[in-house]
């Protein structure tokens, strides 16, 4: 079966002030693939995702989603509708309850949302990520860091997007909770057969989750390949990541 290309990034460049943040970054993400972008802090991983999401303007290059260039506004909207993003800081809205956060996309974008159904669906999503249903009426600030992360994941999954994006999903969590979140993400992607991108500096997470790995250093793609190829690679930087 020929897999369809979901996202194609060609020669992407991003300059902030006088500093080149991303230099000639190119990659292809195919359907049902899980791309893990690794790199040290400040390497340009998060900026790359922000450029793909359209949160930052690019200086040159092109980004295609389902073979459509996503620089046009109408295409951007279509693209965003098919995305689910889980942010590093969770980015939950403090003044909305947990279920309102999870169902936000439909709650505030449908012309006449069915509150009862949306709440039911939000609670189902909370159960899927292993959260008790009684937290639905609580506010994000009343939850622990791990629970907030799960709410963020539930929100990203809510509208059944084509592509899931996880930005540093284990940052700020203890090792036990990190393992739980990693296996949860693995389970979600395996069960739903979704295309996904994860950003991390945790090589173990990358080896466990990825079908393809990209190593970014100084804004450039330093290495790319499968987890198996990563284990055999002689790339110096990748070996530092692998061997600590």
């Amino acid at each position, binding site marked *: 079966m020929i897999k369809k290309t979901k996202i194609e990034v060609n020669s992407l460049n991003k300059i902030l002030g006088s500093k080149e943040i991303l230099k000639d970054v190119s990659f292809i993400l195919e359907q049902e693939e899980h791309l893990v972008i690794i790199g040290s802090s400040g390497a340009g991983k998060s900026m790359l995702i922000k450029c793909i999401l359209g949160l930052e303007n690019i200086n040159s290059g092109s980004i295609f989603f389902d073979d459509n260039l996503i620089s046009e506004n109408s295409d951007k909207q279509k693209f*965003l509708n098919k995305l689910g993003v889980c942010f590093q800081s969770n980015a939950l809205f403090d003044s909305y309850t947990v279920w309102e956060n999870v169902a936000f996309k439909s709650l505030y974008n449908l012309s006449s949302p069915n509150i009862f159904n949306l709440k039911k669906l939000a609670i189902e999503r909370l159960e899927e990520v292993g959260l008790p249903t009684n937290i639905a009426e609580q506010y994000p600030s009343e939850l622990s860091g791990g629970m907030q992360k799960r709410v963020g994941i539930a929100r990203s999954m809510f509208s059944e997007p084509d592509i899931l994006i996880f930005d540093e999903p284990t940052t700020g969590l203890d090792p036990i909770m990190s393992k739980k979140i990693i296996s949860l993400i693995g389970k979600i992607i395996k069960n739903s057969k979704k295309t996904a991108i994860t950003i991390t500096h945790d090589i173990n997470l990358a080896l466990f989750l990825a079908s393809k790995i990209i190593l970014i250093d100084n804004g450039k793609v330093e290495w790319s390949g499968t987890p198996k190829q990563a284990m055999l690679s002689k790339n110096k930087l990748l070996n530092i990541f692998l061997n600590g």
Partner: protein
Amino acid sequence: MKIVFYIELVGQTFLIFLTKVGIFSRFFWDILSQALRGPFYTKTFLNQLVQIGFLSLPVVGLTAVFTGAALALQIYSGGMRFNAESVVPSIVAIGICRELGPVLCGLIMAGRVASSISAEIGTMKVTEQIDALYTLNTNPYSFLVVPRVCACILSLPLLTLTSDILGVFGGFLVGVSTLEFNPTNYLLNTVKFLELADVISGLIKAVFFGLIIGVLGTFHGLNTTVGARGVGKSTISAVVWSSISVLAANYILTEALFNK
């Protein structure tokens, strides 16, 4: 060499100023276009109306009562010098409705509302909540900025009207209890010399003050730089620029409305 340095400095400052004017103009245009294009989030707007308008009533009301009371005492002691004590009710009413009501209300709201809007949106910016809104296909201008600006534009005239009534009431309380005015005469003198134009002009000013506070509060919030320090800085900027702009707009509007 020194002359070149100073010319460069002036040039750079001018360029920074022009850049900021450009950013602000773009921001204002985005608000206008988004307000016209929609969607309009009614629930968010009503919520902001409560936060900005209703919850500001106590502080605006108390300020108005005390200002009206103090104004009555000042005008009485000044008027006594040329036997014009009887002007107290009318001067209090005109002074409050034309000037003190809208300006004090604008300044209080600049402190209370511009700071809270800026801090709230600034915190959302540094915690990636604004980015999250984009990815949830919700335009932050429609969802955060337009409802707040509209709530400010509607709240300020209503609060100013309340402030006018309570300010006159403050003057009446002092006039009757301390200055020994006859209550009926005090009220008759207030109504007799106060024109509808005095009240309307204050309300027109308040609409502009609401626009200024809403726009500057959201502008500084959305332009917050990273971290808690960034939020603090944008909050200060929002309050300072709102207050100065309210006072400057007050002068310009007074010129336009009364200098005929």
